[in-house]
């Protein structure tokens, strides 16, 4: 039988709380109390003094990990290719952004780094410097034992040139330090409620984000061997423990059949108000566990 999922939570889930009604200590407490074993963060959001946290902050970080028995999972970072208006970033600068975050992630104990590359068009094609920049830091990532995993995120589906390029890179270099991170928002098959005001009207890309891009979960089987981490993106789980946007009852059996035994890291992205996320994350952690248990009790044949 394939392994079990590992359960984690991203501090990003608490974006509407963090910094105003929630600090790092409270975030750890909410995450650990779900029974999760892993914590995911955004470097530039959750690390005081990023990218060079002071010693007092580092001491506190490791104390909190020990106290709550959490392990660092994935650190999110950005390669801001449009840092200068009207100017591209060089390969050297791109590699330096990656190196900065690889070193910080390693210092904090992370095993995965999600770099988000700037894009050049409406199809969200990453700036072509991504490949040579990543190639320059593969040895460093290997030395630091970190897997860099860009996210496959709505509106980019699994079957898309961007994903094909990433897989081609993995095959060409033979690296074990670059892989795919799947954001489960790609499986969204029903519209988000209350998001219309967030995005420009009449924009076709915005419509995709509202309505979902309906990737068939079965498509995961074709890329499973390249997947290192899953952000369990969700937007709303109602009072009957029913997710109104992401079809978990279809997604979880596919992940199990694929033999996925990595992290499911809760990533709540819903109402733009504080005090909502804490219980939403608890609901999702319960829902995912129930579905995994149900599958294990009666596996569905492929």
């Amino acid at each position, binding site marked *: 039988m394939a392994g079990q999922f590992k359960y984690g939570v991203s501090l990003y889930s608490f974006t509407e709380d963090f910094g105003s009604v929630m600090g790092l200590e409270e975030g750890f407490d909410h995450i650990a109390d779900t029974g999760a074993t892993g914590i995911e963060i955004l470097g*530039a*959001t959750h690390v*005081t003094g*990023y990218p060079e946290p002071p010693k007092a902050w580092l001491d506190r970080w490791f104390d909190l990990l020990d106290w709550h028995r959490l392990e660092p999972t994935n650190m999110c970072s*950005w390669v801001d290719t*449009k840092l*200068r208006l009207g100017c591209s970033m060089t390969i050297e600068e791109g590699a330096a952004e990656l190196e900065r975050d690889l070193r910080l992630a390693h210092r904090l104990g992370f095993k995965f780094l999600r770099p988000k590359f700037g*894009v050049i068009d*409406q199809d969200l094609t990453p700036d072509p410097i991504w490949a040579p920049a990543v190639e320059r830091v593969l040895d460093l990532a290997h030395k630091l034992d970190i897997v860099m995993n860009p996210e496959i995120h709505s509106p980019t589906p699994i079957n898309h040139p961007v994903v094909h390029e990433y897989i081609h890179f993995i095959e060409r270099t033979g690296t074990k330090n670059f892989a795919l991170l799947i954001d489960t928002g790609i499986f969204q098959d029903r519209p988000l409620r209350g998001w219309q005001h967030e995005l420009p009207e009449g924009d076709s890309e915005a419509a995709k984000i509202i309505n979902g891009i309906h990737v068939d979960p079965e498509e995961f089987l074709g890329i499973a061997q390249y997947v290192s981490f899953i952000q369990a993106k969700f937007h709303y789980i109602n009072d009957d423990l029913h997710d109104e946007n992401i079809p978990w009852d279809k997604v979880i059996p596919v992940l199990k059949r694929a033999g996925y035994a990595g992290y499911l890291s809760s990533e709540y992205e819903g109402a733009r108000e504080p005090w909502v996320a804490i219980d939403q994350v608890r609901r999702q952690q319960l829902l995912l566990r129930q579905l995994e248990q149900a599958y294990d009790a009666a596996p569905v044949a492929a």
Partner: protein
Amino acid sequence: MYEFQLIQSTGFRNHGPQGARDGFELRLRLPNYRGMRLSLLDGIDVTVDGEFFGHEVNSLILHGKTYDLEDMRKATAVSWAMGDFGSVFVPKAGGLAPGIHHLKVAARVRSPYFPPHLQPLPVNGERLATIILP
């Protein structure tokens, strides 16, 4: 800690010598969910009681330094970190009268991972806020 909303209550005040005010300030939380380098902020539009002041004329005071739009665009090594306050300086001769004012803010944030036509994307705030001293 921040107040939840973008425009903070504290920090809304007149600017310049008393009796010869040259404008007003309003304080913002970081207009992004991640700390960002200042060159990714392409200025801040402010509307007070219906009067519009564009991002080309307003400046930002961060860590005690003042950045106009050109300075911001060049500030690739300056970080507006989570937890830092920034104040917008809006030039307006005489400043604002003590009282409750209607404020609207659009912080123009460039996110390189968004498609080009969505850059910059305004991060909006709107509220009533109070100036105490003339």
